[in-house]
């Protein structure tokens, strides 16, 4: 079984986060080699060759994104550690258990991109990971991996750890940049993309923690080696956060390509109490749900997309037969309504309205027309209810709130009707 990101933390559970252990296990060796002998372009080339796709949710090829970086300077690198999507906790593990791997990735990426100031944006509810990363950054400064003239290469890099304060929307890259600039975390209109006008209107690359944590391995082993792992379009390993009604929840670093059945019943150890599977969310709260018929779909970015959903942030939430689908949908919609930044009318008003209607249905006060109403509200947020979603909003948070609605409307229409006619949940 190939592991890239989690080897060290599994082998050294007690001190994988320390500089000593990191260096012992070959850490910063790649950095030394790269700073001594590699041109920045060569690193970019390796990343491009690796076909590494962003792990934050959009799965955009990392090398391509780097290629968009505008030539003007200064430029910034921002690490998105604002992991807040329900079901996702992989970055927390990477931050907490192997921060130096991330820092080495940052230094390599910054060197490759000509960046001299990088920011690590960690969500506010993660004080422990933030403390660990901060300590690791201090260790790295102390050891000469950060600061002026890193390892005598003449390359300078400052890293600032920035703590969020409880706003999921700041995981959206432009909202994150606004937040980092000290503004309200409202997404910006794109274009211009951050690679052209990002932090302080300067060219900026925003990458996910997991994405950048892969960089030391890719630079060390070559992009081709990474590209050799896993099926086409889903290269490399990937951290999946498995939670919900499975026997063995947790983070799993896997090579993609297996079926969902293998993943849920293999890694997850099957459904609790031997219950039947009812549905699962394949890629974080914003992804449309899968049901039994998708169990034999291969777990790759493209196969999931073909089935009108997404791997997103790699969070798999499994629901068994005892789960009320209306309640589950409401809980997800409530999240998005709560986390809407409030800029765009359809998301601000629509998500709350969806929540209100669902609340009514769940409480047994639904009307026959309510499901159609829900779908029409959804249609006004995400016209056509197509996949990938069209949107009437600036960022995809609006359409995210629609996913649970279309999911229950597609697969659990009868259950919704039973709520309406039975005056509440038929499951009791």
């Amino acid at each position, binding site marked *: 079984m190939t592991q890239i990101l989690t080897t060290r933390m599994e082998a050294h559970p007690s001190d994988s986060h320390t500089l000593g252990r990191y260096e012992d296990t070959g850490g910063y060796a790649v950095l030394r080699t790269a700073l001594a002998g590699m041109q920045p372009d060569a690193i970019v080339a390796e990343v491009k060759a690796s076909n590494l796709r962003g792990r934050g949710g959009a799965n955009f090829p990392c090398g391509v994104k780097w290629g968009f970086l505008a030539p003007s300077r200064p430029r910034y690198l921002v690490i998105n550690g604002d992991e807040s999507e329900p079901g996702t906790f992989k970055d927390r593990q990477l931050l907490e258990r192997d921060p130096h791997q991330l820092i080495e990735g940052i230094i390599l990426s910054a060197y490759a991109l000509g960046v001299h100031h990088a920011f690590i944006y960690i969500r506010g509810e993660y004080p422990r990971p933030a403390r660990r990363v901060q300590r690791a950054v201090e260790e790295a400064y102390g050891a000469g991996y950060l600061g002026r003239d890193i390892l005598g290469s003449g390359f300078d890099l400052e890293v600032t750890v920035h703590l969020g304060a409880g706003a999921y929307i700041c995981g959206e890259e432009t909202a994150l940049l606004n937040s980092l600039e000290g503004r309200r975390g409202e997404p910006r*209109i794109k274009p211009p993309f951050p690679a052209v006008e990002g932090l302080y209107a300067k060219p900026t690359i925003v990458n996910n923690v997991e994405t950048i944590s892969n960089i030391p391995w890719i630079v060390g082993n070559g992009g081709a080696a990474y590209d050799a792992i896993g099926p086409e379009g889903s290269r490399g390993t990937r951290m999946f956060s498995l939670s919900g009604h499975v026997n063995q929840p947790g983070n799993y670093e896997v090579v993609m390509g297996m079926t969902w059945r293998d993943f849920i019943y293999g890694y997850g150890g099957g459904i609790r109490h031997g219950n039947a599977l009812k549905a699962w969310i394949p890629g974080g709260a914003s992804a449309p749900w899968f049901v039994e018929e998708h169990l034999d779909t291969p777990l790759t970015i493209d196969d999931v997309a073909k089935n009108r959903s997404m791997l997103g942030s790699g969070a798999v939430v499994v629901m068994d037969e005892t789960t009320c689908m209306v309640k589950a949908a409401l809980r997800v919609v409530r999240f998005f309504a709560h986390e809407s930044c*409030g800029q765009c*009318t359809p998301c601000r*008003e629509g998500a709350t*309205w969806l929540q*209100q209607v669902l609340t009514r249905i769940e409480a047994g006060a639904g009307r026959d027309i309510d499901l159609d109403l829900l779908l029409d509200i959804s249609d006004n947020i995400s016209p056509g209810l197509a996949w990938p979603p069209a949107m*009437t909003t*600036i960022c995809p948070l609006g359409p995210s709130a629609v996913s649970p609605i279309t999911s229950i409307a597609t697969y659990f229409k009868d259950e919704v009707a039973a709520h309406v006619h039975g005056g509440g949940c038929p499951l009791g």
Partner: protein
Amino acid sequence: MAEQPTLVTITVDGKPAQVPAGTLLIEAVKAAGVHIPHFCYHPRMKPVGMCRMCLIEVEGPRGMLLTTSCTTPVADGMAVHTESDTVKKAQEGVLEFLLLNHPLDCPVCDRGGECPLQDQTMACGPGESRMVEEKRHYPKPIPISDLVLLDRERCILCARCTRFSDEISGDPLIEFKGRGNAVEVNTFPDEPFASYFSGNTVQICPVGALTATPYRFRARPWDLEAVESTCPHCSVGCRISVQSSRNQVLRFMGVDNGPTNQGWLCDKGRFGFEYLGSPQRLAAPLIRNADGVLQEAAWSDALDLVAERLGALAAGGPDVVAGLGGARGTNEEAFAFGKFLRETLGTNNLDAQLGDGLDARLLAGITARGTIDDLERARTVLVWAPDLKEELPVLYLRVRRAATELGARLIVVHPRETGLDPVAAHTIRYRPGAGTELLRRLADGSGDLAEARRALGEGPVVAIVGRPGAGDDPRLAEAVLAFAAGLPGATLLPVTRRSNVYGAADMGLDPGLLPGRVAAPAGTGGRDAAGIIEGLIAGEVAGLVLLGADPVADYLEPARAAAALEAASFTVAIGLFLDESAAMADVVLPALGFAEVEGTVTNLEGRVQKVNRLLPGPAGARPTHEILEDIARRMGGSIGAASAEALAAEMAATAPAYAGITWEALSWGEGRRGIVAPGPAGSQPLVHAPEDHAPPPVGRNLVLHLARVLYDQGTLTQAGPSLAKLARPAAAHVHPEDATRFGIPAGATVRVTGSGGSVELPTVFDPSLVAGTVYLPLHCGASIGAGLEITMEAVS
């Protein structure tokens, strides 16, 4: 001026259209004749694409893309659909979302009847609400300043107001608060939205979330009558819509005149309409009776008396009488006043200013006079002038825009912090009275001024020059203008505050000028304001005609002015109010004012604009030109003022710079934006050489910085209840170092003694003030004259 934009071809709903390149789709499509509904988009602000109302479909490589037309720039060959089913559905959806929480306040909402949300709901909204849940509720309305009320239930969160106060006016006192469905616009607790520009947010609010107290519930939009006119409050000449109901002016709205105000107004302009309907307006002539009391009289008696007394005085020889004023009315009134004084009374003692502005010959005669719009192209802007935010607020907005949006380098020279300092690249302080030395150093680029000097070497340069304080020597401004004229690509904007002081100068209300920017022939010189006042005191001048001027309050040495009026053997005051000077006059004649007469005015660029008539005015008041004509006729002459229009025609025919600027030309097409009267050709040498006259900073000596503030004790401000309460009490602003030197604790009362008297005032510490200086706001109820040299001592 009108650069032809390059055109690109796009397809709008299947029809090809030629639209200007580089514009946003929403504007491009408008140019093609298609209106797209929108709320958050405002052509004078950066687009944010928040309301999502302006969604349209654009054909792209990956099929039709629904996108906001306010954020998408137009590109050649673009095909857009504004009326497809998808677009209609999306727009209807957005409107439904907006209306979910919008209260059904339309019948009581000030916006009802002129509300974009109402209009667009009628045009493309759903018929009925599908929401059965409770709407969002907030206490309503809450006052967020003395002038503005906020109703958060009505707010659709388009951020126009917050963006205006952040981007345009630079005082972000209102902001979004909260997140998601709980977002609201609000101020910081206990920190009101006390912006000089708050009224603009009321005007641009697309719903009735922000309403203005002076207009609240006074009328409904459909019973308003309106004319376009020019704001009467300062010399920027903002274009306004004057709106009235039942013969009462109820509000001024900004009209987007690109070259001047771009749609914005200051709150003094916007809410400064109340004086017109003030019960204190003069409504009948007053004659001082045998007991020395002013008593109402018939017009014929009053005019007879004036003609008789003035005639008797004028018969005594030339220049025995004098005229002051004319800087607040129309050009036609100023022209008539000049003719009346020069031809009927045979005097050259006339001045529109009261010694507090710039030399009228400079105003009328300056070459390379710029326009406000030059700021759009300026590389460097030099402001050596009064605090524009206090005196010419909309010019402040334009300069601020140049500095923040257009990348101009701004250099501000002033004795203390001005509103522009936060956006200035260089701020230079100097002691009042020591400006010549500073100018020399700036011209040399010596020492710490090197950077600023280098910036001034990069043109085009716009120089905005005036007297920063009333005590500053007007000759310094001339010297600064002379220096600035030599800068690369320089255009010059001399500034002074009274609304039509430029027009008055152009109409020859100065001993050295004849109408149309013509220098008076040598040897015809009369007295200027200071000369008139001293002449009255000395008994060399006996009669005085005041036209909308109040020297007793406004002359920089009020005591001298009072003495002059005391000494005059006959004074007639023509005006709107019984101000301090009128109260000392022998005859007071009520005149019609703004919105009651038609005419033209000239702003600080020399831009001539029309003012229009909407109201009859008080029954007993008459137009100024008629009053003057009637007096002239009684004296056996005429000034040919059969009507204001006849005067205008005479001006257009005889005053060189005003040739062809007729009412007709100003009323239609491009002329409605005003016509800039052409300046003199060639270069006119500036008149005076300045010299420093600051007393040396020794012992307990200080210099005085006396400057205007927006809301003061002026007659027009005080006659309107909304603005009157905003007037600031006077205070002595002292540098903390000086306070220490004089042993003055914070908040202590001091006695300040100057050339014209002595007052006791509370102190305010002002570290931005140049040391050795005391700043007093002008016209705030405490006057010590304008002499630079003053003394200060602690009282308690």
